[in-house]
Every structure is written in structure tokens, then in C-alpha cells.
């Protein structure tokens, strides 16, 4: 069979609009591109001239799935710019809300978006007749994540409760305890995802070595927030040097910019986090990690699905620990006020799909510079590369049945977030 | 009516006893304001509370509630949240507000949703000292003769407790030992002094005589357009007014499509769609027309019908409207009277 062109107009079961385009020249693979046709929103340029708090509200609108990661990164960057140091309760509450998002996004991806691929269904709804219990388990975990986001941020998506300097309102002790007990009870459900994926044969036609990066937690436990960046090349950077790491550029087939490190594609993701920090995982999550980890994890992006499943277990185990600490601090702190009205700040947090950078410059209480670099923008080149390898291998072996699906699965394993990726731009002084 | 005395110090003990009748609710602080909230801890009650954000009407016509649950074409009445309650701490103006709602909801075609909630609720009044937004003296709603089961009145180190109904008598018997019947001449003096003090505190006062005629004559007054230009049509005034009672009804289907609820929720005549009918004709398109209707209801219609205004002088519209449109402003505009704010 001779192929002329493979074109996946619009990737399904991913957030945002992207496609895959593979072209051939006389039967030989010519070009592989991941096209991003989501329209540009130029959100950073909208930020210019607005107040820091408006920009935080704007920043989280970059993306609905990782809304709280964006909000978290924006808050941290803004607080650095404005000279605000928040207290421990605020910090713990933010970690709790971050857990909510990780649980929500990872469970959505693992159970509803990725599993149908492994089990051969077009969607999770189609899985119901045969895998009702698993779909239900996935929905329960995801529902918990959504509720936790709602509790901490005021609504499931774009909640406005986390503000610069603190929170509008703190949940009551009894609300928090309800979530603590619910999290404990849900661990077996989350483990179901790990079990199913562990027993699946991971396709390997795309394997290729990768460079990984992730945020180094401020403490020596597993975590998602810190001021330094780790790379699998053994280096460590300051978060504010993120531009050296990401080196963005524009390509013609994409409304999203692309990043490279030392002119090579790299990966950020749960897989990156596990490759770099996996040994730090405690309790059940740690057990699962050690059971599942193997050397393919550094070559095969499909293991990102497994990593996300295990990370969900970790986040559920983390919720009770956080709740106990939050409850121990009785008084709700007032919102911290800025100590200055100008400055610059960068911050990195791990979004479910990888490292996310926000950077702002503020002068006279107005934002004058803004830069957001999303995980998807960073790994698009790596993703494209894996698809190229896969297309080459599959064609070489004449294994071209369902080739679209096979390529799409790789893209999906990255859990890309395309609407995020289309507004990742530095803008200064408009 | 019978009057008893209760020591101030015994108030909390008595409030605790009231819980055996039903849920105890009373004013508690919310920021700088007050709201009626469940008193799980009786010491949460704000005894010096001024007006609550929403008047007690919320207990009898909740902002939103289910009238029926339906399945296919079968309707089942829903009185889910009707339960015995004691409302403690209603000021006289709010009790008058309820008496006005009673006229609307309990007279012709009694409304069972209102009636059941009203029947299940004991009203315990509490005297108050007005602030600069109270106008109850002008509306003659600063004191109560009825409309309560018990009414507490400040009396030095005691409360003077009026029993207003046989239910009130039962409530007293929940902890009879706390009450005493010996009211002494000294007490009357204290009571009268307290009344003088209260009456002297009304900063707002005006004359409502002939208000219907004045409204009629001012129908085309430019004042209405001036107010309309400022009015945000936000509806806050109607939400907080103890005698505003308009509502909408809508059916909300379950996703299964064959069952659902018929629910009722507060509406406001300040809402643009309020008088919109099929075919797109709107009887009160202009904000000025809607404002006129609001104030007609307060200062004209009810007087014509019942001989008293349906404004009870609680001051909530004064406290609430962001652009200072309120009953005092309107009266001032209509009559040229000096209404000091």
C-alpha cells in the first residue's frame, strides 16, 4: 500500500485544535508536522496596561483544564513582582487547590481520554457497556478533583477565589474534613487506572530518547512548585532563566510557538517529573511507581499515561496531609497587600502536562510586560519528533492499518493542551 | 395580652429552651451587616443588630423554592423545607412587613406555601433603637400590637416580654421558671423612658398624609426620569424590601426530560422583562415606568387598598441602593419635604 498523505484534521479527545499532517514523496516519508490551527488570542498583549489582579483573572483563562496551574503561576509571578510573601495557610491552600487540578486533569486524561485508545473505543461513553465500573471509578476520581477545585477556587473552572496575596474565602473545617475522608476513600478507584495501564502492552514504534525537564520542589518531597528547574541532562537552573531553556520560535504550520533546549526538542510532563523525581514518591504511589518503572520510560511517551495514573494516587494521598496542616492553622489570614507597585517576577509551576512559566513586569501598578510559556508549547517539537519516528517505523514495517489512530494515540499520550499553547508569547511595552 | 419579665442574664438560657420548639434562627453579624442565620450557638445572636440584609420574608417565601415535582403530567406538591422554627429578634418594622405580606398571601386565594411556613414559625420580636436610616415612626410601624407570638422589650436589666398568642404562651412555658410576673411601677417608668429615648432617635421623619394624591399629581414629574437615569435596574431594592413579593414561576426539567420541578423565585419589577408579554409588547419598557410602579406599590396602591403604606420604614432601600434611590429620596422629590439623610 502506498500512502500519499496522512492528515488528521482535528485531534479528538485533546483540549484545543490541532492536527497531524504527514506527507510523502514517492512513497517515502517527507515531512511530519503537528499543525496547530487554534486561532491566536494574543492574551499577553491584552494584559498590557491592566492591573495585576485583572491579569491574574485573564491568565487563568488561557486554558480551562489547567486553569488553576495558570492561576497559581500567575499569582506567584505577580507576588514576586509586587514583593508579597504569603503565609503558610495560603501556601497550603494553594497546594490543595493544585492537587484538585492534578486529580481532575489526570483522571480525565487517564480514564476518559486515553483508556478508550487502549481498549479500542471511540470514547469513554462507548466503554460503558463493557467497562462500566472503570468508567465510573474514573468519573468518581475526576468528580472529586473538580469539587476540590470548586471548594478552593469558587468554581470548577476559572474560580476567582485565589487572589494576589491570599484567598477571598477559606473553606470551613468541616468542609475540609469531608474532602480529606473522600480522598482517602477514592484511592482504590485511582489505583484501578494504574492497574489497567500496567497490564497493557505499550506500543513502542515511536521510541526515541528524550530530554526531560521539571520544576524542582522547594522541599525534598515530591511536589510541583519551586524556583529551580531540573533537566535530565543533569543540570539545574533558576526558574527566572526559563528563556534560556525554552528558546521560543514561530513555525509556519502552527499558531503555537515552539521551544527547544540546546536546539533539541525536550519533554515536560508527568513522565518528565517521574523520570526526574520518581524516587521521592511516598506510600502507595511510591509502591506503584517502583512496580511500574522500567527503562522504556525514558524513551517512550506512552508511559506518560501510567505516570499520570500514579500521580493521581499521590495527589489523593497528599490531600489528607494538606487538610490536616490547614486545619491546624486556625485563623484565616487577611489578604497580603503589595509592598511596592513595580517590579518583575517569574514563576514556574508544574501543570498536569508539564512545566508552566509565567513572567510579568509591573510598573505603577500596571502590567507592562507579560510572558507565558506553556508545557504544550515546550513539548510540541518532541511530540512531532515521536510522530515522525512512528510514521517512519510503521511504514517501514508495512504496518499501516489504522496508522492515523496510532499516530493520534501518541499525540494524546502527551495530553496536549492546545488552547494553552496558542498564547504563549512575550510582549513588552505595547 | 400578658406581660412578663425576664432577666437579661437569662436570655441565652431561654433561647436554648426555645430550640425544643424547632430550629432557632436569629440575627448574626456578617461583616458589618447582619443576616438571619441558624443559631446553633445561641451566643452568636447579635442582640444589637440593626436591619438584616434580607428581611424575614425569606423564611416564608424563600428566594427560590420548589412548588411541585412533576413526573409526566402528574404534580406532587413539595413542602420539603417546611419545619417548625422560632425566629428570634424581629424588629417591629419587620413584623409589620409580615403583616402586610399576610394580606397578600393569606387573604383571597391563600397561598399554601406561605401559609404552611407561616404556621410552622414562631415569631419572637425584639425592641430596637433606630439608626439614621430608620423611618418606622413616619410609617407608624415602630411599635407592634400584634403579629408576634412573643415580643421582647428592653427594660433596664430585664426584658419586658409580651405574649401575643397562645403559641407565645406555650413558648413561655418551655422554661416558665425564668419569667416573673411582678411588674412594678418602677418598670413602667423605665419603659416609658426607653420609649422616649427610642422616639428621639429617629433622624428621618416625614408626613405621608395624602400620598396617593401626591403620587397621582406627580405622574408626569420629571423626577422619575432623573431617577431612571441613575437607576441600575439591579433589582436590589426589591430583593431587600420586606413587602416586595413579586415572583416568577418556571419549570425546570430533569435531564431525563419527563420529570422536573416547578419552582418559584423572586422577581423584581425593576427587571426589564417584568411586564413583557408575548408578541414582544412591554408594558413597562422604560426604567422610569418601573420605578413609578415600585413606588406606587409602596406609597399609593397599598394606602388606597388598606389605608396604610406598604413601606414599613425599615431603611433597607436606603442602605442598599448603590445610587441612592430610596423611599426617602422619592418622598422628598414628590413632596418637597425636607427628609434629612
Amino acid at each position: 500500500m502506498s500512502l500519499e498523505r496522512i492528515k488528521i484534521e482535528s485531534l479528538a479527545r485533546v483540549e484545543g485544535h490541532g492536527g497531524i499532517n504527514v506527507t510523502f514523496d514517492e512513497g517515502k516519508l517527507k515531512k511530519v508536522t503537528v499543525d496547530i490551527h487554534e486561532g491566536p488570542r494574543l492574551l499577553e498583549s491584552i494584559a498590557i496596561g491592566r492591573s495585576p489582579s485583572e491579569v491574574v483573572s485573564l491568565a487563568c483563562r488561557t486554558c480551562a483544564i489547567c486553569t488553576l496551574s495558570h492561576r497559581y503561576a500567575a499569582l506567584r509571578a505577580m507576588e514576586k513582582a509586587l514583593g508579597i510573601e504569603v503565609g503558610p495557610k495560603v501556601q497550603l491552600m494553594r497546594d490543595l487547590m493544585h492537587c484538585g487540578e492534578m486529580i481532575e486533569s489526570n483522571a480525565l486524561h487517564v480514564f476518559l481520554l486515553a483508556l478508550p485508545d487502549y481498549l479500542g473505543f471511540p470514547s469513554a461513553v462507548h466503554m460503558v457497556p463493557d467497562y462500566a465500573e472503570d468508567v465510573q471509578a474514573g468519573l468518581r476520581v475526576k468528580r472529586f478533583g473538580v469539587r476540590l477545585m470548586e471548594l478552593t477556587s469558587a468554581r470548577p473552572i476559572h474560580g476567582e477565589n485565589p487572589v494576589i496575596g491570599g484567598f477571598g474565602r477559606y473553606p470551613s473545617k468541616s468542609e475540609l474534613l469531608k474532602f480529606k475522608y473522600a480522598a482517602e476513600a477514592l484511592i482504590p478507584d485511582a489505583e484501578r487506572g494504574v492497574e489497567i495501564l500496567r497490564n497493557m502492552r505499550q506500543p513502542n514504534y515511536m521510541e526515541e530518547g528524550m530530554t526531560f525537564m521539571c520544576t524542582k520542589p522547594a522541599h525534598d518531597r515530591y511536589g510541583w512548585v519551586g524556583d529551580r528547574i531540573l533537566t535530565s541532562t543533569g543540570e539545574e537552573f533558576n526558574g527566572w532563566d526559563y528563556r534560556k531553556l525554552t528558546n521560543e520560535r514561530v513555525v509556519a504550520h502552527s499558531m503555537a510557538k515552539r521551544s527547544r533546549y540546546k536546539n533539541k526538542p525536550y519533554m515536560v510532563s508527568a513522565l518528565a517529573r517521574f523520570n526526574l523525581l520518581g524516587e521521592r514518591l511516598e506510600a502507595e504511589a511510591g509502591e506503584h511507581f517502583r512496580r511500574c518503572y522500567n527503562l522504556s520510560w525514558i524513551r517512550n511517551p506512552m508511559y506518560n499515561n501510567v505516570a499520570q495514573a500514579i500521580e493521581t494516587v499521590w495527589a489523593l494521598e497528599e490531600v489528607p496531609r494538606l487538610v490536616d496542616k490547614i486545619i491546624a492553622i486556625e485563623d484565616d489570614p487577611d489578604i497580603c497587600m503589595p509592598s511596592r507597585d513595580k517590579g518583575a517576577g517569574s514563576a514556574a509551576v508544574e501543570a498536569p502536562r508539564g512545566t508552566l512559566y509565567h513572567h510579568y513586569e509591573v510598573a505603577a501598578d500596571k502590567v507592562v510586560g507579560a510572558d507565558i510559556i506553556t508545557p504544550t508549547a515546550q513539548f510540541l517539537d518532541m511530540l512531532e519528533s515521536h510522530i515522525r519516528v512512528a510514521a517512519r517505523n510503521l511504514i517501514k514495517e508495512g504496518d499501516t492499518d489504522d496508522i492515523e489512530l496510532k499516530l493520534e494515540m501518541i499525540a494524546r499520550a502527551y495530553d496536549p493542551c492546545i488552547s494553552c499553547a496558542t498564547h504563549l508569547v512575550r510582549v513588552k511595552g505595547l | 395580652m400578658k406581660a412578663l419579665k425576664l432577666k437579661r442574664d437569662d436570655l441565652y438560657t431561654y433561647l436554648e429552651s426555645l430550640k425544643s420548639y424547632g430550629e432557632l434562627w436569629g440575627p448574626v453579624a456578617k461583616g458589618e451587616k447582619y443576616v438571619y442565620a441558624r443559631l446553633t450557638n445561641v451566643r452568636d445572636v447579635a442582640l444589637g443588630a440593626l436591619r438584616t440584609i434580607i428581611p424575614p420574608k425569606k423564611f416564608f417565601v424563600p428566594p427560590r423554592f420548589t412548588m411541585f415535582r412533576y413526573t409526566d403530567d402528574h404534580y406532587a406538591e413539595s413542602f420539603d423545607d417546611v419545619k417548625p422554627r422560632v425566629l428570634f429578634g424581629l424588629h417591629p418594622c419587620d413584623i409589620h412587613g409580615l403583616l402586610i405580606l399576610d394580606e397578600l398571601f393569606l387573604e383571597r386565594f391563600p397561598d399554601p406555601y406561605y401559609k404552611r411556613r407561616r404556621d410552622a414559625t414562631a415569631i419572637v420580636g425584639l425592641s430596637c433603637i433606630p439608626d439614621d436610616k430608620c423611618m418606622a415612626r413616619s410609617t407608624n410601624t415602630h411599635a407592634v400590637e400584634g403579629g408576634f407570638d412573643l415580643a421582647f422589650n428592653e427594660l433596664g436589666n430585664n426584658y419586658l416580654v409580651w405574649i401575643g398568642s397562645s403559641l407565645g404562651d406555650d413558648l413561655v412555658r418551655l422554661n416558665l421558671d425564668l419569667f416573673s410576673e411582678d411588674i412594678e411601677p418602677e418598670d413602667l417608668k423605665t419603659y416609658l423612658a426607653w420609649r422616649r429615648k427610642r422616639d428621639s432617635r429617629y433622624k428621618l421623619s416625614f408626613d405621608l398624609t395624602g400620598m396617593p394624591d401626591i403620587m397621582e399629581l406627580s405622574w408626569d414629574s420629571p423626577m422619575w426620569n432623573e431617577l431612571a437615569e441613575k437607576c441600575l435596574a439591579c433589582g436590589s431594592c426589591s430583593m431587600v424590601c420586606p413587602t416586595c413579593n413579586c415572583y416568577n414561576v418556571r419549570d425546570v426539567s430533569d435531564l431525563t426530560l419527563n420529570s422536573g420541578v416547578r419552582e418559584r423565585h423572586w422577581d423584581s419589577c425593576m427587571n426589564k422583562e417584568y411586564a413583557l408579554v408575548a408578541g414582544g409588547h412591554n408594558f413597562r419598557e422604560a426604567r422610569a415606568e418601573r420605578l413609578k410602579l415600585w413606588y406606587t406599590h409602596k406609597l399609593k396602591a397599598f394606602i388606597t387598598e388598606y389605608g396604610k403604606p406598604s413601606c414599613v420604614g425599615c431603611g433597607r432601600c436606603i442602605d442598599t441602593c448603590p445610587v441612592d434611590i430610596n423611599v426617602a429620596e422619592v418622598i422628598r422629590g414628590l413632596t418637597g419635604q425636607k427628609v434629612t439623610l
Partner: protein
Amino acid sequence: MTNPFLPEEMRLVRRYDLTSDVRFFQVRPVDMDRALSLRYKPGQFMMISLAGAGEAPFSISSTPSRPGMLEFCIRKVGRVTTELFKRKENSLIGVRGPYGNGFPLEKMIGKDNLIVVGGLGAAPLRSLLLYILDNRDKFGKFYFLHGAKTPEEMLFRKEFFEIKERDDLNCHLTVDVDEKGQWPFHVGLVTDLFSKVEELDPENTYATVCGPPAMYKFVIAEFLKLGIPKHQVLMTLERRMHCGIGKCGHCAIGPIYTCLDGPVFSYWDVLHMKDLI
């Protein structure tokens, strides 16, 4: 206590189209005793309730002189009406009422009557028309003037054609435009028909009008020209209603509620109550 908001089950016995968007509905309480004991007056209305769609007020088009049935004539405009149009014969619908004051029949008896109808105004006034015809001997002279936009849009065409043949009333029908040239009667505005009104004793006449809002002004002017006293000029009004029993507030006009104190008003009411029309 009975719940006045609870709809009563009635069976939809007959329905057919009157025009492209107006349909005739005949309904009957499921309980036959109730059907026979149901009392109402021309000019009153009922709330029709369809679970999932909601409720809306509709004038009763039938006459109490023919008990056992209720008839409505309804234009499809929104939620309730759309749902109602889907209901088949023999299905059950919710109805409550009757509500409103209705026409002051006690005062109208023995008097001359003049009814003027435009468009959908036929819905409430058909009730009065049939009532007078069924009790013809109790009333004096009787004029019925009816205008529609086009022949196709005239409601109850067949019924009115038959009534026109009767010699115990003066019935005149008109249409604004007759494109096909097939209309056998007058073509022009309903006010043209006043030229056919003669020999009424104005002091002893009740004149009733119902139709689109724009029509009232002109028709009332004609009534006054005839010398009919203002308090004997009657009309039915429309307002938004969510309850029908003076609770929801939407139909309030000054101190009155259209649903309780109306929907029938006299021209005198209109004059002394601002905001009525």
C-alpha cells in the same frame, strides 16, 4: 387546605386549526360531575399548565350556557403554547381556574349590546357572543362587528358566517385586505363597520371591545361618538401573569391586579387609573 396552584387534570377532547398559528382546543375535566358543575363567566380565564413548559393564562372561548366543556383559542408563541400544540386529542393537560372578574352580565342583561372584535380578541368575546345568543331573549338589540387582517386569519370563520345568517342580531365581518378577491363581505378596517350601527339606545348600551392594543383607541372613539357612557364601554386587557390569583405581582396596575380585578375593565377605569392602557 387545597392548593390553588395545583392544576386540575382535564382531557383534551378536540383540537383543530383556526389559522396557521391559532388552534382551537376543547377540554373537559376528567371527572364528569366536575365537568357539569364547573361554573364560569364570559370574560374569565384559566391557567393552562403543562409540566415542563409552565403555565400561561388563556381566556375561555366557550359559553357557560353550554356546560360540560371548556374551549380555548390559542396562538402559538412560546413555551406553553408550543407544548400545547404538540398535545394530541385525548391526552391530559393541567388547567386551573376560572379566574378574573368576567363581564358584568347582571348589569348587561336587558341592555343593548355592541361587540367589536379584532384578531385574537375573538377568543374572549366569542364566549360573550355565544352567551348572548343562547340567552337572546334576555338582551336588547345586538351588534357584533368583527375584523381580521385577511380572510385566512379570521378565527371561527365558519361559525361566524352561520351567525351572520341569523336575523336576531346584526353581525358584520370585515377584512383589512383581500388579495384573492374572494371575500364576500366588507373589505376595510373594523371601524368602517360602525356605519352599519343604528338604532342603539346609547344610554342603555354596553359596548365591548377586544383586539390588538392599537385598535382600542379608534374603536373607543367610535363608541363615545355613539354616545355610550364611559362606564358601559368594556374591554379585556392583557398583562404578564405567573399565578392568576394576585400573588406574583406581575399584572399589578396601581392598586389593582389584572387577574383579580380584571381582565375586564370599563373605559372609566382606564381613564381614572393611569397605566391601564
